[in-house]
Structure formats: C-alpha cells, structure tokens
C-alpha cells in the first residue's frame, strides 16, 4: 500500500511539472483588493522611483487596486512582453509596448470610443479597426538638439532650416575639430538610426504620408528611388566623416551622456531627451530645431501612442482598465511625465506645467506650430499600427543603418536587405 502511494505520488509530481497553465493574466484577487501586474521599463529618465511614485498616485485614489510592478530587463519591453505572453505570464497592464502583434492575436483589450473621449487623438494607431493602446502622449522623433557653444565656436549663427544648411553646419563643426553628430547604437540599435528615421519621415513621408501603408501592400519597396535617396543622404553624412562609426556600439545611456559631456555638436533624438537636457548637469546651453527638409518646408515627424495596453484576458480586467485610464489621465502624472521623460501629453485641454524646463518648452513650441500648420507626419520606424513596420523590422532598420555607418553595406545593398527581410517578415 505504501509503495503504491509512493509510486502514485512520484508520477503525479512528475506529471504536474509538465502541466502548462492557461494563458491568462498574472493578476490575482489579493487580500483586501484586486491585484494587477504592471509591466514597466527603466531608463535614465524613467527610474524605479518614478514608476513607484506614479503607481502610488493611482492606487492612493483607488485603494481597492493593488499593483505588482514588473520591470523589463532592458528597454526592449515589447520583446519582454512577448516572452511573457508566450510563457503564459502576460501582464495585466503594460506601457509603451508596441501593440502590433499582440492586438492581432486577441491578447489586448480594445478601448471603446467612450474610454478614449479625453484623448486628443483617439483614432491613433488603429489595428484591424480597434484601438488597443491608449494614445497618451506624442513624441517628436527626431528633433535635433544642439550644443549652442559648439555652434557659436564654429561660427554657426542660425539653426539649419534646410538639409543643405545642416550639412554646412556639420562641415563647420568638423573644420573646428569637433564632432558634428553624436550617435550611438549598442544593443538598443535605435540611436544609430535616428538620422535615417528623420530623413525618411521628412523627405518621404512629407510627400507620401501613407508610404508604409503602400509598402505593406507591396506597391512600393525600400529599394525604390525615393527611399534610397533618403538613405543616401544618411550615407553622405558618413562619407563626409560627420558620423563617427566607432560610436555604433555605444549604448543609449552612454550616448546621451556623451552629448551632455559636450562630445558632439548635434544630437538627433526623440523629444524625451528634453528631460535630461533640463535636469542633468552639462556646461553648455542646449537648443533644439526641427529636422530640416530638403527645401525648408516644415515637416515634423511624430508618434502618438506610448500609452497603456491591457490584457484582454486579465483576471481583473475592470481593475486593469481603471488603473490604465487613471494613470494616463491623472494631471499630476502627466506633469511628472513631462518633467521626467519630456513627453507631450496628448490629452484634450492639457497644458504643460509652468515650471517645465526650457529645452522642453522649446521643443513643445516647435511641435505645437507643426500641429497648427498640419505639418506632422508619422515618425519612420516608430509607427505601431496597421501602417507600421512589420514585427521584427525595426531591428532590421537599425541594422541597415549601422551597416551603412560602418561601410559594410552600400545604400543599395542596405535597401535590398530591408526588402529581403520584409519578405521574410510577412
């Protein structure tokens, strides 16, 4: 009898180890309230303290909701979210995660028009007719932040308004022995491609706003002349020595630090950099100008989204939705995100705090003028909807940019590479 029990227990133990749980959210009904999990990510701007304070502000108003904070191991929170989904641990709520892929699979809750009524761009980022990510904020990607002292030393008296003026400014800086651009890359990749993103957005999307939608329909290709032309301008900067290829291995954090240390005159980066520009130590004044177009026409690349997504299968769906909306619409939280991460909250009636930093204000003003003039286009490689890059293609764009920087690929080869990878990604 004891032997039978032992054998049964052994088999049961082994078998239970092989059981895979149902794919549900990771929230539970905690004692005294509903618990939800919230996936965050950390960066120089978004510290653990930032997230803790933000969560507390919401839970103080909703004491029945308890939040278990999860932290992605890198800034690639989208990749981490996929791992969690695959392993059956998809969080109840996540922020700034590309919703493409998750939405199509049915993993995300689709926000209703009523829930989106307070957002400035409720129709942003549709995926198969649904809106799965709260369009909480807008980011201009990239404006060009510049070192005013280096500009003055190089005899540059006005910010570039055309591409030719930008190139001329770069040449002047180089002639003075400085580095025209600060770029990075490392394992994040995107700092290597910022200039390329700007060129494609301004030159290509400025003329053909739905270019990527056409690409999805195979009506255009990366190897087409228009895209190659934009890429060619990027390669031209490399050929002229304005971009230092040794910087492609530098992490995003180190890249930002390098600019703040005065290692280069211009830093093309999303407007989130304004937070660091306004708060972190540097011994020169920082300015910002729009990414210049060929003819000086105002075209500002931007992306609206970056908000909360909610697990459609959350065990506490109502609590998750409540938390997400409360988080995104809280005035104090919005003000904090402006200061901490330089975001432009896309909430109706919102105005930035009076004590926002000077660099942020300058960038925000540029964006507001673009909105008024209807000069905003999508930011290439940052779109996350039906008109966005296919899953996995962002990394390929970053790789292509790095290959051109290091001289490993010509522009034609890089564009052909993107088309090849696109065909595989479909």
């Amino acid at each position, binding site marked *: 009898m004891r*032997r039978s029990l032992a054998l049964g227990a*052994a088999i049961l133990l082994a078998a239970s180890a*092989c059981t895979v749980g149902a794919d549900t959210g990771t929230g539970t009904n905690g004692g005294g309230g509903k618990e939800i999990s919230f996936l965050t990510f950390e960066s120089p701007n978004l510290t653990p303290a930032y997230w803790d304070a933000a969560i507390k502000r919401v839970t103080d108003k909703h004491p029945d909701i308890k939040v278990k904070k999860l932290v992605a191991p890198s800034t690639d929170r989208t990749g981490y979210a996929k791992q969690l989904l695959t392993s059956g641990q998809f969080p109840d709520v996540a922020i700034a995660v590309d919703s493409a892929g998750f939405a199509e699979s049915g993993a995300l809750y689709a926000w209703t028009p009523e829930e989106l009524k307070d957002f400035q761009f409720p129709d942003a980022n549709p995926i198969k007719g649904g809106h799965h990510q709260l369009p909480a904020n807008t980011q201009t990607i990239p404006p060009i932040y510049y070192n005013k002292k280096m500009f003055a030393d190089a005899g540059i008296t006005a910010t570039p308004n055309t591409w030719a003026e930008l190139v001329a400014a770069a040449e002047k800086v180089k002639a003075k022995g400085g580095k025209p651009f600060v770029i990075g*890359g490392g394992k994040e990749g995107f700092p290597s491609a910022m200039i390329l993103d700007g060129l494609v957005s301004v030159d290509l999307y400025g003329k053909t706003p739905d270019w990527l939608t056409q690409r999805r329909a195979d009506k255009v290709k990366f190897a087409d002349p228009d895209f190659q032309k934009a890429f060619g301008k990027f390669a031209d900067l490399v050929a002229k020595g304005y971009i230092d290829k*040794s910087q*492609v291995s530098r992490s995003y954090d180190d890249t930002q630090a390098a600019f703040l240390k005065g290692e280069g005159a211009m830093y093309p980066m999303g407007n989130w950099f304004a937070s660091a520009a306004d708060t972190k130590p540097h011994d020169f004044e920082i300015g910002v100008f729009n990414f210049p177009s060929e003819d000086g026409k105002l075209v500002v690349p931007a992306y609206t989204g970056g908000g909360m997504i909610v697990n459609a299968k959350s065990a506490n769906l109502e609590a998750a939705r409540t938390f997400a909306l409360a988080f995104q619409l809280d005035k104090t939280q919005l003000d904090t995100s402006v200061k901490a991460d330089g975001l432009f909250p896309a909430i109706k009636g919102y105005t930035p705090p009076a004590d926002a930093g000077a660099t942020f204000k300058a960038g925000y003003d540029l964006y507001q003028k673009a909105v008024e003039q209807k000069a905003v286009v999508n930011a290439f490689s940052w779109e996350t909807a039906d008109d966005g890059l296919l899953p996995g293609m962002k990394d390929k764009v970053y790789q292509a940019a790095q290959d051109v920087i290091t001289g490993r690929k010509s522009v034609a080869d890089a564009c052909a590479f993107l088309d090849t990878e696109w065909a595989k990604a479909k």
Partner: protein
Amino acid sequence: MTAPTPERAEEGKSPTRRRRKPILPRVWHFASFGAPGVLIYLCFVMAPILISFGYSLTNYNPFNPPTKFVGLENYKNLFSDETFLTALWVTTVLTLIVVIVPNVLGLGIALLLDKKGWLYNALRTVFFTPVILSSVVVSIIWQKLLDDQGPINQVLRALGVDHPPGWLSDPDIALYSVASIVCWQMLGFCVVVYLAGLQGVPTELLEAAEIDGAGPWRRFRAVTWPLLAPSLTINTVVMLISAFKTYDYVKVITNGGPGSGTTATIAFNVLATGLDANHAGYASAMAVVMLVIVAVVTTIVLQFLRRREVDL
C-alpha cells in the same frame, strides 16, 4: 508422518520459482525511483524537441493565426536564407575559436599550475572564478571594458594610440571580441579539467621516462599528452556544445551587431526570429537544424577523440 526438516523443505522448492522472484523488485524499484526522472526528462527534453520539430513543419506565428502545415518549406527556405547562412558561418567561426583557444591555453596554464603550494592553489581558484560567474554579468562587464570610450581604449589612447580598435563597433572585429570573452570565461573550465587529468598521470611513468633520458618535451609528448586524452575529449565536447548554442553573450554585448548579422549566432537568430519577428515555425526549423548539426559534429568529434583514447 513426521514434519519435513528444513533441509528437506528447501529441496522441495522449484529452482524456477527462486529465479523469478527478483524480477518484481527490480521493476518496482525502477517504477518508484526511475519514473520521476524519466517522466521529467520526457516532458522537459524530449517533448519540447518533438514539439519544436512539429512546429518546424508549420508556419506557426502565435500572433497571426491560423497555423498551417507547410511540410519542409521552412527547411528549404533556410538554406537560401542569407541571414541564416551568415549565422551558420558566425557560429562556426565562434565555435572553432572557443574550442581551440581555451583548450590550448587551458593545457598550458594547467601544466604551469600543476605544482604544490598555496600560491598555485590560489591561482587555480583565480582561473576558475570566471566559470562560476553568470554569463550575463560577464558580458555586461566586458561590454563596458571594450566600449570605444571604455578603460581599455582610454589606456591605449594614453599610450599614444590615436585610433584604438572598435572592439565592438568594428564589424570586422566584433565577432572576435565576443569569442575572446567566451574564451576568457570558459578558460577556467579547461584548466580544471586538465589539472584533474594531470593528477591521474602516474609519476612512476614520468620518472621512468626521465631515467631513460627523455627530456621535458619528450615526456610531455610521450607520457603526459596521451594520458590526457580523456580530458581533451571532455573539454572539446563541452566547449563545442557551449559555443554552438551561444546566445546570451551575443544578446547582451552586441545584440547580433554591429549591423546585420556580424555576431548573430544561430541560437541568437532562433530567438530573434521566433520572438521579435514572431515566426515561431521558421525559428523552430532553425533550432532543429542547429540540434542536428550539434549532434552530428559532436558524434564525429567524439568518435575521433575516443578512438584516440582506445588506441592508448
């Protein structure tokens, strides 16, 4: 009628019955003690392999249903996929370096450390320490060291090198930088295995060889090296398998870059394809091919090395 004596009672038993009795306990012991391990192995090793093979015959994408059977199309596409072929090349180069360098250096260091004394004991510990560190921790540390603005290049600049190498940014160098890091960490393993092997070399043989007039090199070649054959086998196979499935170093240090595929191993591509691009079926095909390659290469290497052991 008298009761049979014990001897007579024993004689009455059938020999067949006595031999059959132990069978049941053996079955029982296997079922009791072996079953959990076997079940765990089946569930966590064999089942995933079979499932992966199954996925490799489909276009499985967890984010884009439905899944369709595509037969061997994934495998066919693999061998015309430049990204995969590049990864195969990268993995091969990395594997060759990681198999050869730690073995050679490990043997040399082991010979130097094969002496008595507290200093040599301390040095053994020093050399083995990297092995027990997390590969992610090692990767992060070395990434900082090898950065263009890192301490190594700063020292080189201070020494007058105006343009030090881009250890991680130069596509021609990055793979060798990653391989060097892997070698650095795995070196200690080889050292320890060779030290253990050296402990098994009979001093009598060495003394006899010395008496016969054999010098240090001859003693090493004729006595020590042949007797280290098992150590060589262990080190080679372990390094081979470890190198071929290298993922974490690449992910943390370079994320497959700089650029496209310069340091991307097959294992890295498996995860990038499966998790970033969501093509789990295609990724599974890569994984299966990698498994087959590792199995075949390992078998061949083992056969060759074990034949050398047998020849002794």
